[in-house]
């Protein structure tokens, strides 16, 4: 853990972190882009999960919907991560000791792993999955991704 705290300390003194510290509008601008990215990420995940729960577009094949929305989900995630990293650099030491941040990173990792394993399997072409498993996958997917949102919002409050 010692080396991890050194990494956080180092990142807070990089040119990127200094650029953000030296600007009044850069952090808000990056945070706004972060919210736009997470909106696309959560919106597309929500649409597929609602389909798995059989609440929307019953005639739209799950695998086709998931395939069509996947590029948007990954784009939203990429924007969120690429804007998240500079925000983290600029207040790395604060985040290091922040329980909400630590929880967010754990849940984010779980959400991504779940997304490329169970979620991918349930939404893949020709998947033979009982509807109940589809619904459970949707509930877990929503809990994980919205968990990332909740803990992310909490970083600034604790």
């Amino acid at each position, binding site marked *: 853990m010692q080396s991890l705290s050194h990494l956080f300390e180092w990142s807070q003194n990089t040119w990127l972190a200094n650029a953000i510290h030296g600007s009044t509008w850069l952090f808000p601008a990056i945070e706004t882009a972060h919210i*736009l990215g997470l909106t696309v990420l*959560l919106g597309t995940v929500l649409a597929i999960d609602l389909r798995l729960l059989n609440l929307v577009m019953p005639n*739209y094949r799950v695998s086709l919907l998931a395939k069509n929305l996947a590029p948007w989900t990954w784009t939203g995630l990429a924007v969120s991560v690429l804007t998240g990293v500079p925000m983290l650099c600029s207040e790395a030491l604060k985040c290091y000791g922040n329980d909400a941040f630590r929880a967010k990173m754990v849940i984010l990792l779980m959400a991504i792993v779940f997304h490329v394993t169970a979620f991918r399997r349930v939404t893949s072409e020709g998947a033979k999955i009982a509807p109940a498993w589809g619904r459970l996958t949707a509930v877990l997917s929503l809990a994980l991704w919205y968990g990332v949102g909740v803990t992310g*919002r909490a970083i600034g409050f604790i």
Partner: protein
Amino acid sequence: MRLLGFVQWLQQTAWATAFRESTLAYPIVEGIHLLALSASVGLIAICDLRLMGIALTTRPASEVLKYLRSGSLIGFTVMFASGALLFAAAAEKCYYNEWFRLKVLLLFLAGVNALVFNLTVYRNITAWDVAGVPPLAARRAGLFSLILWALVIVAGRTTAYNL
């Protein structure tokens, strides 16, 4: 001036004061506002992309819009209710905040855009329902909606920084 009187009264009501001074309720409502926003705007963005002929083009536009707009409306209701609470807590500051005024204007424009779409090109959706790329009026409505909602988020986030 009557509007100013109203926001001052609103902010000083007992419940708005209690909400403003709460340590837990305020951040929770703000979190709900953000997550409801991601649901509402996220689902609307998918509808917009379908109208623009960019995403989900293999399915009828009516199918995508029918379900995802309903879902979005639920998200919008939660977002509006939580937003109203957040507004009440800082009503007078919001009144004088130029970013908040811009946000209200943008929300109004997004509403007008949706209304115009519903009253015009949406009415003969059967004519272009299965077309991968909808007519210009529908594509334009989708693009306007996407831009306006993104700007609502920008103005909303900036409002919070300037309160």
